[in-house]
């Protein structure tokens, strides 16, 4: 292979893409992208959902090969034609979706990939992990069963595994999406220390604040093309607001995404549609129990549920949708007790649930988009008649969904698993809103979406409430709740700690919510600091 002269001379290059193109059936995922990642830098890749970020990661990790162009490692052209070739080249990757075997222990996952006849060296791994915990504050319990850990903990293990390999390039594809804000900051500090040791870090995120705080250099992708770049010195000169403005400008070509949805509607006064009375569920080792939860939700109202991830929000959503059985209290819907009703019965009444687990719980990845849009209505008119599927009807419905929600997909026959997260989300939303929806529960509806899709999703949620539907909005993003909700209830340890009316004007709303979120003991300190 002949190489362009200047790549060989660029001594600080860790990896480089040179006019790389990658196509998938019906999509040009990466379109002539050139990119140089330097040692000692945290290089942030930005781009909206489906921009091609994970495809670039896939090519660097040896999962896919470029159709055109080539990749160089440390200045020399390399063919990364398998994951082991990529690992041998010193590239370690933490993928967007967890790549650990859930039925193996953490230790076993760490040694996975070694030759089969070899015996695992426990002591050596233990020593290295101890070092890593000390240097980077990683938390790794070697004997835990991997599947029992939270996604955040699993991500820590993947990072530890990447570091164990003495990589020269570390790729983190949306590694902070599963972390709490403090966890993300910790990871940011870890990346900084790694870069100081001479690693090159590629960091992909949708959170522009993180991009500013953790990154040295920022590259922006739009629909597979590299559209802009903020160099370290330029980035250093900007303050956070200016940098974010510049990133938004690059990502969306100047289009205005911060259209404020600020609301000054009168508070809804109709009789409650959904009432939860002293609801409780069983807990377990990994699942927090719900205790004594009560609230009312009126038609046309958006009730926000705030709280740090993992404080029972998912259990609440499942108890309301019928996926989890209640052990105490009751759920009233339109005056009737629905506590014992099944998922299907509640759905028929108009109670809909949009899960945060889009991939495994929400969709069947190998089914076409069309089938996924009617997955919850199997056997029901108008898509089935007398037990017989009517593909033409379903197809027409799916095309309408794709058009109306501007789903980026080649056709309604594309398996839904091929879409990017944001586009799957649109299909799910469309599905929950078909038919006689009266109340919708959203669980983290904008998680993993890019800025533009987030704005669009929020606008849709607003519209739904304006049409008179009752909306329960579970979210970990305070901004989202403040932007949309009429009232915000805060959950902590499986209980509702308090409910705050979103009177928009009050500037200390965030502070009030934040205080409810952290536990009582720490509260005094926070106020002390703030004063």
């Amino acid at each position: 292979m002949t190489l362009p002269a200047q790549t060989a001379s660029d001594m600080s290059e860790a990896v480089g893409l040179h006019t790389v193109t990658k196509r998938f059936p019906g999509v040009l995922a990466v379109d002539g992208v050139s990119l140089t990642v330097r040692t000692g830098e945290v290089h942030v890749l930005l781009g909206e959902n489906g921009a091609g970020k994970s495809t670039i990661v896939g090519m660097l990790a040896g999962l896919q090969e470029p159709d055109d162009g080539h990749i160089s490692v440390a200045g020399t052209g390399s063919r990364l034609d398998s994951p082991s070739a990529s690992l041998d080249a010193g590239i370690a990757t933490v993928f967007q979706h967890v790549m650990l075997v859930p039925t193996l222990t953490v230790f076993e996952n760490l040694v996975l990939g070694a030759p089969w006849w070899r015996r695992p060296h426990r002591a050596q791994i233990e020593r290295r992990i101890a070092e890593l915990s000390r240097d980077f504050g990683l938390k790794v319990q070697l004997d835990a069963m991997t599947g029992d850990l939270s996604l955040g903990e699993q991500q820590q293990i993947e990072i530890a595994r990447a570091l164990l390999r003495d990589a020269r390039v570390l790729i983190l594809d949306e590694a902070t999406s599963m972390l709490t804000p403090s966890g993300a900051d910790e990871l940011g500090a870890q990346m900084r220390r790694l870069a100081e040791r001479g690693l090159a870090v590629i960091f992909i995120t949708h959170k522009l604040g993180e991009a500013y705080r953790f990154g040295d250099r920022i590259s922006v992708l739009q629909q597979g093309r590299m559209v802009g770049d903020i160099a370290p010195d330029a980035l250093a000169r900007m303050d956070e607001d200016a940098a974010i403005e510049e990133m938004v400008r690059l990502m969306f070509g100047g289009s205005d995404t911060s259209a404020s949805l600020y609301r000054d509607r009168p508070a809804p006064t109709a009789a409650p549609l959904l009432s939860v009375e002293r609801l409780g569920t069983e807990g377990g080792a990994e699942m927090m129990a719900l205790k004594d939860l009560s609230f009312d939700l009126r038609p046309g109202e958006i009730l926000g549920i705030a709280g740090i991830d993992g404080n029972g929000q998912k259990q609440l959503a499942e108890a309301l949708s019928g996926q989890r059985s209640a052990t105490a209290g009751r759920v009233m819907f339109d005056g009737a007790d629905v506590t014992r009703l099944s998922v299907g019965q509640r759905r028929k009444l108009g109670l809909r649930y949009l899960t945060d687990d889009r991939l495994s719980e929400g969709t069947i990845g190998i089914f076409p988009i069309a089938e996924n849009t009617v997955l919850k209505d199997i056997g029901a008119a108008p898509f089935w008649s007398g037990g017989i599927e009517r593909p033409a009807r379903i197809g027409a419905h799916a095309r309408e969904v794709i058009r109306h929600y501007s789903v980026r997909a080649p056709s309604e026959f594309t398996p839904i698993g091929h879409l990017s997260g944001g586009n799957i989300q649109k299909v799910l939303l469309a599905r929950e809103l078909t038919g006689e929806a009266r109340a919708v529960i959203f669980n983290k509806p904008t998680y993993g979406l890019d800025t533009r899709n987030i704005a669009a999703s929020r606008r849709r949620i607003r519209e739904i409430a304006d049409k008179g539907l009752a909306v329960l909005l579970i979210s970990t993003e305070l901004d989202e709740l403040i932007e949309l909700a009429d009232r915000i209830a805060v959950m902590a340890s499986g209980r509702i700690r308090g409910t705050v009316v979103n009177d928009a004007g009050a500037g200390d709303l965030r502070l009030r919510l934040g205080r409810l979120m952290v536990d009582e003991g720490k509260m005094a300190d926070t106020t002390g600091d703030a004063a």
Partner: protein
Amino acid sequence: MEALLTAAFLSSLLTGAIVAGIPLLLAGLGEQMSEKAGVLNIGIEGMMLAGAYLGFLTAWTSSSIWLGFLGGIAGGILVAALMALLCVVLRLNQIVIGIALTLGVEGMTALLHHFQFSRTYPRLPAPDRVDLPFLTDIPVLGPSLFGRHPLVYLALISVLVLAFLYRRTNLGLTLRAAGEKPAALDVAGGHVIAIRSAAVLFTGGMAGLGGAYMANIGAGLFIPYMTGGAGFIGIVLAMLARGRPLWVLAGALIFGAALSLTTALQVAGSNIPTDVIQMLPFAAVMLVLVIWGRRARLPAALGVGYERGAR
């Protein structure tokens, strides 16, 4: 009924359990490896039969039982190589290919045997036995346990060897990862296609050896369709054993005993109708499945082909 407890009956039951159990053990151990790696190897019945045929043919032409075993292994591996190519490399449906291979081998071996031997079924000379002084003289247990062909002891040793490999080396991890989440193994630098193919070939070798044992030691001759579902019982054993070679051994002996009950009862001169007795092994399979089947835990990616980078 007291006839059931005579020495003759027990001795013949125990001998039968071992003679009929060894092929099941070999098949079960082989299938276990494939299933761990995520390949549901339904072609194992065909691999056994190919092993029985080639094993018999080699032994008959070379007059060496040991060469016969090698021939059996080769026969099983031959069919397994086809399965690995079609199902692991080309990702065709494992169940369809497995059934097709079994049917294909059944027809092929019957045809070849017919061409060669017409309607005759030549017999091999009886294999030489190990005669351990004293041990073989113990009543009931002695001849059953210690007078067997050396292959029996090799099969038993292989149980321990496999248990060691699975537990103490990375082999167990690599196989389990290939069966549970091949993408995770792939990105960790493992070789999914290689380990799955190797596992299928191993299954073929073990099944072929089991088939050769049935022909060369068990029957002393080859009859078309002679494996009669032994491979399928091997699949059941592998599923119930939850990855443990020792459990395969226990299961193989139980099923072996059930299979040989017919002979044992005849030896004992009981008057239970043979039809009822012949049903016993299958009743045993069903009973075991009903009782323990629920506890079988299959790998998450069992039966699913792996394609790198596919969504």
